[in-house]
């Protein structure tokens, strides 16, 4: 993660708590910093409090404790609440929330309030052009496809030149193909806007692809923040690792700075003798060797074709299973005996 420069404009959330009912708060002491011009993804399972945090930043939910500041102006604190209309937060809602009684153009123009009507419409039209929808300006939301609606919602939020852009699962209503098409365009538009951007998602692939940095959220708390590849390769915990993708887990105990596992010995710097640790292995780090090579002996018990590669499930002699990925051209068959090695970069120790 790049260092925060002194002149960066920041949105800072500190110790934020939002409580809907007695018991565990929906947002439970969150620390998060967003930087203008950068895209942060907030990734977590459903019910982890992501959307509530987003709404608190937008001013749609009051804080029960903690603070939200933008450039040192206090936006939210206990008993203090700057109303949403005064925050200049552009929000793209999960259901897009386009006004059904207004055309695409009028939706985009809704938040514009400076200058005469003609110039506001001109501005709105330019925003629509930017998302390649100028030709649909006169269409009503129900006449637009899902992807078009998403782009209108994005243009509408960007039209107010927001300081902070908040997107709540912006691609969840779209099919897979459209999703990946829109992702790139959306990321470009967001970076150009110079706003501090937060994208809420439960899709790891989306977070990894879109964001400059990722914050992982679970049960109301941020459990790890960092650049996408750091987070993927060096997760802080099993939960963090699972949020970002498939992972297999092997238990071990640290002896003399070494964790011995069925897959070999790993240096356990930072742990002390007797610590219980978990070895986390990403499937793409598992190498398959011929049976007479070195490594842990295993047998392929299932092979499934996924997009672009084969997913092999291997059973070790200990009975544990492990997932590996192999090129489709390689001739692995169920029942084959193989030796497994692990590329160190894709294996990572965390405490149990």
């Amino acid at each position, binding site marked *: 993660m790049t260092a925060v420069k002194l002149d960066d404009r920041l949105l800072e959330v500190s110790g934020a708590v939002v409580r809907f009912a007695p018991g565990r708060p929906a947002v439970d002491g969150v620390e998060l910093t967003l930087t203008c011009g950068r895209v942060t993804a907030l990734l977590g399972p459903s019910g982890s409090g992501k959307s509530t945090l987003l709404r608190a930043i937008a*001013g*749609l*939910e009051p804080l029960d404790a903690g603070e939200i500041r933008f450039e040192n102006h206090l936006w939210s604190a206990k008993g203090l609440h700057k109303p949403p209309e005064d925050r200049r937060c*552009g929000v793209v809602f*999960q259901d897009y*929330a*386009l*006004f059904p009684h207004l055309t695409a153009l009028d939706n985009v123009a*809704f938040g514009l309030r400076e200058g005469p009507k003609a110039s506001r419409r001109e501005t709105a039209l330019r925003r629509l052009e930017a998302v390649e929808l100028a030709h649909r300006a006169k269409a009503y939301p129900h006449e637009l496809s899902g992807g078009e609606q998403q782009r209108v919602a994005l243009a509408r939020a960007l039209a*107010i030149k927001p300081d902070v852009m908040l997107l709540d699962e912006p691609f969840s209503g779209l099919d897979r193909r459209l999703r990946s098409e829109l992702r790139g365009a959306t990321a470009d538009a967001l970076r150009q806007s110079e706003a501090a951007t937060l994208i809420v998602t439960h899709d790891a692939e989306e977070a990894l692809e879109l964001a400059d940095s990722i914050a992982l959220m679970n049960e109301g708390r941020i459990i790890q923040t960092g650049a996408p590849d750091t987070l993927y390769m060096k997760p802080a915990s099993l939960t963090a690792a699972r949020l970002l993708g498939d992972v297999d887990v092997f238990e071990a105990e640290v002896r003399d700075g070494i964790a011995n596992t069925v897959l070999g010995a790993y240096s356990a710097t930072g742990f002390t003798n007797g610590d219980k640790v978990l070895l986390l292995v990403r499937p793409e780090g598992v190498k398959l060797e011929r049976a007479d090579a070195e490594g842990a002996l295993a047998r392929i018990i299932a092979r499934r074709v996924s997009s672009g590669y084969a997913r092999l499930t291997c059973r070790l002699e200990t009975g544990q299973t492990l997932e590996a990925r192999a090129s489709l051209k390689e001739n692995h068959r169920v029942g084959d005996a193989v030796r497994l090695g692990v590329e160190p970069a894709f294996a990572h120790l965390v405490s149990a």
Partner: protein
Amino acid sequence: MIAGRAQFNPVRPALVAALICAAPLLAVAALGVFGPWTDYMAHIARTRLPAYLGHTAMVTGVAAVSAGLIGVPLAWLVARYRFFARSVFEWLLALPLAAPAYASAYGWYDLTQPGGPADLLPTVRGPIGAGLIFGFALYPYVYLLAREAFAGQSADAYEAARTLGARPRSAFLRAAIPMARPAIAAGLALVVMESLADYGAVVHLGAPTLSVGLIRAWAGEGAIADAARLALILVMIAFVLFALERSQRQRARQTSASGRRRPPRRVDLDPVRGAVAALFCLSPVLIGLVIPLGRLTYLAFHAPMARDLFQAASHSLTLAILSGLAAAAIGLFCAYALRSKKPVAVAAARLAGLGYAVPGSVAALGVLVLLGGLQSGLDDAWTRLTGVQFPLLLSGGVLALIFAYQSRFAAAAIGPSESALQRVTPTLDMAARTLGAGPGETAWRVHRPMVMSGSLLAALLVFVEVLKELPATMILRPFNYDTLAVIANNYASDERLGEAALPALLITLVALPPMIWIARRITRQEDAK
């Protein structure tokens, strides 16, 4: 709920609406329970009550069966087949609702009475005749709700039945009808509730029901407490039906909301079958609307004009417009109350919604009791303070009438406003707020345009109902304040159908354009879904 500035708080308006709608009913109940017992009640229980009850059962039974037999096949035909003028019939079939049942009763009775132009037909009279009149006047309730259900049913169930070996007719009976049953039951409950509340048609056709008994007890004998007791019987029947209607509608929503729906594709009918279908669609409109109105038109041309017709017309219009506006406002407040999800507000709005089960005569009686009590209370206090009586301000004024209309009809305005407001999802509010609009601006730029046409629908529905309303108007109208419905009824009860024809005709003609708008809107809206 958006934090920050205060939101519009609907609790108080909803409580006022609930009070307006429920107070008359509570007054009737209190009077029925605590009021003085007279010999009249004992007398009536021995003599006329059995006949009232019998007529009520017969009239509503025939009405429900005939409305079901007309409404359900029509709905199926229009929802699932394509034939000549189908899209016109779609809304045309709702239009008999524009004519009050008594207008249809006058027309048909005059046509079929001995010596009338159609005296080959059995004379339309008695409980069966009245039931049939109601069937043809009110089947649109069944038709509209069943059509919505059939059109909204996913084609899957019907097609699944076909692939499992059912022929079209059997698939209709075994898959389509059971799925639409909640909607059909709700429509039938409305038919029965409306026939229960009627006065003009059953009196004219000689099948006095409980409603008639109630008005006779009040007007003929001045026995208000006994009228209240008859009213309570009526209300209890109505509430059972109302509960049925509500629970069935709930189920209708549940059975239609699930999953992705694939709307059925309409099947083309060949020209011959198409012509038969078109004729089948045309006949209830002819019987329920065109023929009786044609007869009334003929009568109107051959009889002296009713006295004070224009004045009555302006009274009718004034009452209908004011009530429509008031009901739209109440409907909107209740819709906001329901949207707020605040328990008190929601309960109040639901209570206001109960008004629809209260027949007009009962609502009017309740208003009379309430205002009478208020007046005598004020009189006492005023006399003690000043030595003179309190001025006669409240009883029997136009305001009292509008009060009673609201008590009965405002409930009809809640539905359209509620469904309009349901389209304004919480995220739309949030979107407006994050785009810089404050709560007031959000209400003006987002809520107002989205709710407007729902409120117009509510106002027009109540406008049409008030225009046709008879029993409540008879009870509460100020002295010398006649409406079209009242003068039509007065002439008809003097056997002067010729003079009764024009006012009855006028009611229908004025109600027809808004009814066309309503019917087109309701049917188009569902197609867009």
